[in-house]
């Protein structure tokens, strides 16, 4: 089946993370032949989302530090004399210090199976995975997932128009005159989704229930939100990829102050409705926020404080301590000790500009998890002819000695696939390539809890909370709490993501915050205060490599036509990935437009012959005008004409 894969492409992309997927989509969209492969058996790399059982096997895989011994070096035979090989890494080393904890009765869950689980998908376990995966690959074709197959492109597009014209009819016809994006990106209104019955007393969720309902979970490895005026949203709208995904507005911004979780009023409506602020506080907060929206116009207001920190600047603005806290940590989300005034003002402005586009907070969250987004771009790529291969490790890059350019890759079957451009995700590069690279780390924790950190009347809340650092020099921790209507966790549970740049291992970084916000004492009846806090049912900590911000020239020995995409960064938004993808695309194809809007499916011509009658028809509109009686059969009529010809 290795023979099935064509051996000539224009662009080969290794890794299905967000930046790689965007580049792949952009290349396919501009007509390049794209091969997109991933050595893993799932899409997204470190951007992926997992069901509960999927996450458990991911944890297992990353906890087992087995080295793959050097095996067959057959591929070396394929390297010609005038060529040189850059070997690629065989093992993903981006995840470290994985520790998972179960705070319930784990034993009772033994033997419990995920409901509706498929009969044991071949999970790529690290130990002895070699044999298993090779075997399984022989059974199922290398070209993955039928819906992404290039052969299925026609039915794909053939069915699409129906939905697209009905649902988006207004958007496609009138969209060009006024803000096309706004109307087409639909924010999912799933308020009433899964929890219809109000639960009087919180039900006790057990570990076995979590396992049984494991498919309800979509647990992101990276926890991000989309700024509603961020680059990713703009790209989703522009490229029309947004049609493949649904979004939900983050519903509230929280702050952690003096040991308590409070809601931050950030929009005009919030300030108006807030009961915690006094009248004067309302005015001062609004006044400051209004100023931030066009701070550039009033340099006299902040010039004197440009050299001081944003926190100090806030102190000069007649804001009460709680307002200062809200602005610094929850709105600007900048460091108290390091960020200068201008940085804080910029961050605040960005936050405020994003307000109100889709709702009362500046953030959107993709239903079914962040892992959907890379897949949406892969889908666009596939629709435009890109070929996909998961579980497809690549052995090396082949470099032409004379020109110094990369010519081809050699995959694990020993097939040589040549192309003009190569996009490689950072984790694919071997240690020898990355010797000079200095990586940062991200500390992550994922918790499953039984209630929200701030209970209100409305149950289904998507909250973002910034916990300021406990000690100086530590980073603030970003907490995102997802409810079950985001389709990322089962009913009556909340999925909590904690993220911060690492200073130590993830657990050391994040456990203090977890203990402050949650009750981690499994069954013990503790003080009342502890009881009010949400109970953690299950938790995992891990460190993820942050390869963003690495200059290309710090990789040693990479040919100019090999581009490196970084893994996820620790920032809240996705701007970094989009910027990177666009930069790479522009370097490869400076003349091409980056992800232009796809054509109206009705306008795509599949059958070459069809052009003829259509064109003649257009030159003579009177003829094509169907008779009123023959409305329904006009398509058939057109088909008949083609046949006659």
């Amino acid at each position, binding site marked *: 089946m290795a023979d099935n894969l064509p051996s000539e492409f224009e662009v080969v992309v290794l890794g299905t993370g967000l930046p790689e997927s965007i580049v792949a989509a952009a290349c396919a969209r501009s007509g390049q032949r794209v091969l997109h492969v991933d050595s893993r058996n799932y899409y997204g790399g470190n951007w992926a989302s997992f069901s509960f059982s999927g996450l458990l096997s991911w944890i297992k895989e990353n906890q087992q530090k087995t080295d793959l011994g050097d095996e067959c070096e057959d591929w070396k035979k394929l390297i010609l004399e005038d060529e040189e090989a850059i070997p690629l890494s065989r093992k993903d080393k981006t995840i470290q210090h994985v520790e998972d904890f179960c705070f319930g009765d784990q034993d009772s869950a033994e033997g419990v199976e995920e409901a509706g689980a498929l009969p044991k998908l071949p999970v790529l376990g690290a130990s002895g995975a070699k044999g298993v995966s090779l075997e399984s690959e022989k059974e199922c074709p290398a070209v993955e997932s039928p819906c992404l197959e290039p052969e299925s492109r026609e039915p794909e597009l053939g069915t699409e128009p129906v939905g697209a014209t009905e649902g988006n009819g207004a958007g496609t016809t009138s969209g060009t005159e006024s803000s096309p994006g706004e109307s087409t990106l639909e924010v999912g209104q799933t308020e009433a989704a899964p929890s219809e019955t109000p639960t009087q007393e919180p039900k006790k969720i057990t570990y076995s229930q979590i396992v049984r309902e494991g498919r309800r979970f979509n647990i992101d490895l990276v926890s991000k939100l989309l700024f509603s005026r961020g680059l990713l949203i703009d790209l989703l709208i522009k490229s029309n990829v947004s049609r493949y995904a649904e979004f939900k507005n983050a519903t509230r911004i929280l702050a952690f102050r003096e040991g308590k979780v409070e809601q931050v009023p950030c929009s*005009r409506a919030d300030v*108006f409705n807030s009961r915690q602020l006094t009248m004067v506080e309302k005015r001062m907060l609004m006044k400051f926020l209004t100023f931030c929206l066009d701070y550039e116009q009033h340099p006299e207001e902040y010039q004197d404080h440009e050299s001081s920190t944003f926190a100090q600047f806030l102190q000069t603005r007649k804001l009460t301590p709680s307002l200062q806290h809200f602005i610094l940590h929850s709105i600007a989300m900048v460091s108290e000790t390091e960020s200068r005034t201008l940085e804080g003002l910029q961050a605040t402005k960005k936050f405020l500009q994003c307000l109100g586009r889709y709702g009362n907070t500046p953030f959107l969250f993709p239903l079914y998890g962040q892992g959907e987004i890379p897949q949406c771009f892969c889908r666009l790529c596939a629709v435009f002819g890109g070929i996909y291969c998961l579980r497809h490790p690549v052995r090396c890059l082949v470099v032409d000695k004379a020109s110094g350019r990369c010519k081809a890759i050699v995959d694990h079957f020993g097939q040589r696939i040549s192309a003009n451009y190569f996009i490689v995700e950072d984790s694919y590069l071997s240690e020898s390539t990355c010797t000079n690279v200095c990586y940062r780390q991200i500390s992550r924790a994922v918790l499953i809890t039984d209630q929200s950190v701030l209970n209100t009347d409305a149950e289904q809340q998507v909250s973002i909370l910034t916990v300021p650092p406990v000690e100086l020099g530590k980073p603030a921790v970003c907490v995102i709490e997802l409810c079950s209507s985001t389709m990322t966790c089962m009913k009556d549970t909340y999925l909590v993501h904690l993220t911060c740049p690492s200073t130590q291992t993830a657990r050391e970084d994040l456990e203090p915050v977890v203990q402050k916000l949650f009750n981690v004492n499994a069954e013990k009846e503790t003080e009342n205060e502890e009881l009010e806090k949400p109970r953690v049912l299950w938790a995992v900590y891990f460190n993820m490599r942050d390869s963003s911000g690495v200059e290309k020239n710090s990789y040693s020995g990479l040919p100019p036509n090999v581009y490196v995409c970084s893994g996820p960064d620790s920032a809240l938004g996705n701007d970094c990935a989009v910027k990177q993808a666009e930069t790479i695309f522009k370097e490869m194809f400076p003349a091409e437009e980056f992800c232009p809007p796809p054509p109206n499916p009705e306008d795509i011509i599949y059958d070459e012959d069809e052009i003829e009658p259509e064109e003649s028809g257009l030159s003579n509109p009177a003829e094509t005008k169907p008779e009123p009686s023959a409305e329904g059969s006009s398509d058939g009529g057109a088909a008949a004409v083609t046949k006659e010809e």
Partner: protein
Amino acid sequence: MHGRLKLRPPDAARRRQREEKLRLYGRPWTPYWGRGRPPAQVLSLTGSVLAANPDVGTCWNLRRRALDALGGDWVPGELAFVASCLGVNPKSYGAWHHRAWLLGHARAPPAGREDRALCERLLTSDPRNFHAWEHRRALVSREDPDSELAFAGDLLSRDFSNFSAWHHRLRLLLPAGNLPPDRLKAELELVQNAVFTDPTDQSAWVYLRCILSRATPPPRIICVYVNREDATLAVVFSRPVVVTPDRPDLTATLDGSALEGAWRSGEGRPRPSHTWLLDLPRPAEAPPTEQRPRLHLGVTWEPDSAHRQVTLLPDQDEAWWQEPIVARELFWPEVGVADPQVLREQVETCRELLELEPRSRGCLLTLSLLLSALDPLGHAHEARQHLQHLKEADPLRLGFVADAASRLEAALGVLGLGAGPGPLWLRLPEKALTSLPLAERLVLVTHLDLSGNLLRSLPRNLGALRCLQELDLSRNRMSDLGPFPPLPRLERLRLDGNPISHAPALAPLAACPRLARLGLAETPLSSAPDGPAQLAQLLPLVDVAWT
């Protein structure tokens, strides 16, 4: 090229849609007009057109005709059809009208729940859909206002810059008359939240002024004045009224017997007017002073059955009855329903906000109105100051602010007036007046000094000034006199320094019987070649001072 998509010309799909639409519209209309068509057919034909474009009024009319002819209960189905049309154009006049017609025709009026849900849906997507607001108002007019208040409150909590929602609240609350204190307090709190959140948003300020106000009181008699020499009875009202000559609401009696004769307006035209005049029977020959009869006059205003009496003693030339002046009514007729304590609290809140936002125009205006309503004379200085700041803060509405300031000055002048008899002076020079409000309160004024103001015209109700002898309008902006009413006692008029350039502009003065002196120094007319001659022709009896 390989792999490239082949596309139809970009507009092809859209063009095809448009052509299809055009074909539908361009279809001959004659079949629809046919009278003999069965109603069902008319309904389906018009339905297909209206579903595409609900603004074809003809189709709605045809549809109504067909429905009338149709039996059975078609209301629910038709309501659903209109709802789908409103989905196409939520502001279609035809569709909304049809819906109202349908609800009027329903035998058993359907519970308004669906219609309210429809309005709610449309108002959520566009909070300014006035059709939906109007429809909703009609629906809920007979119902418990609490759920509606919650609905309006919900819309406001999403975005309080919503005049319609505030208005909806006002309409729900006001019929109840004076608000109970706790409800008023809740409303005021809501407004405060809004104005402190965004003092530049005018919607909440407007609501605040409204909620503190009352419905304008009906017109009533504020003054009855009779003058023996003019043999005229003048009745002055608080607001302009119409007195129809053949069936007057206003009747007068002289010594117990009804007075005959037609009422005429003090403005010299049969329109709503503050002043209405009635001629008294005039003895053929003026008797000597000591033999003059004692006149007892009575005036009745039917709408509020008010009866006012004036007695003219033999030794008197004039007599009057005047309503005592209520200070806060003069300032802003709308503010002042509330308890002074509530007003004082609001003043404090506004002052607090003003400290934070010294240039908030809603705050400046509201504060100046509240201050004048509370204690006009005591707060005059502060109120003037706020209005001055308002002029600076809001240059786009200078005229409005100037009028508000003029009202303040005129009202203060009225409050400072003495009560006759004898000469009564009102001096308002150099007050930057742009208008002269409250003229109906100046019936007894004999000398009015308006020099050095910014007046461009005089109000029509100047006719109420039955005693005015001297009027100083020098150094204003008047280029003509406009509808200058006939003033019976006016003797001296100064128009020096006004941009009057044509003699005909002064023609209305011919109706003032006693006018003897006219000052026209430093006017363009004085230097015009034939100005003086023209004027002499127009006003032969008037002594004109050109310098």
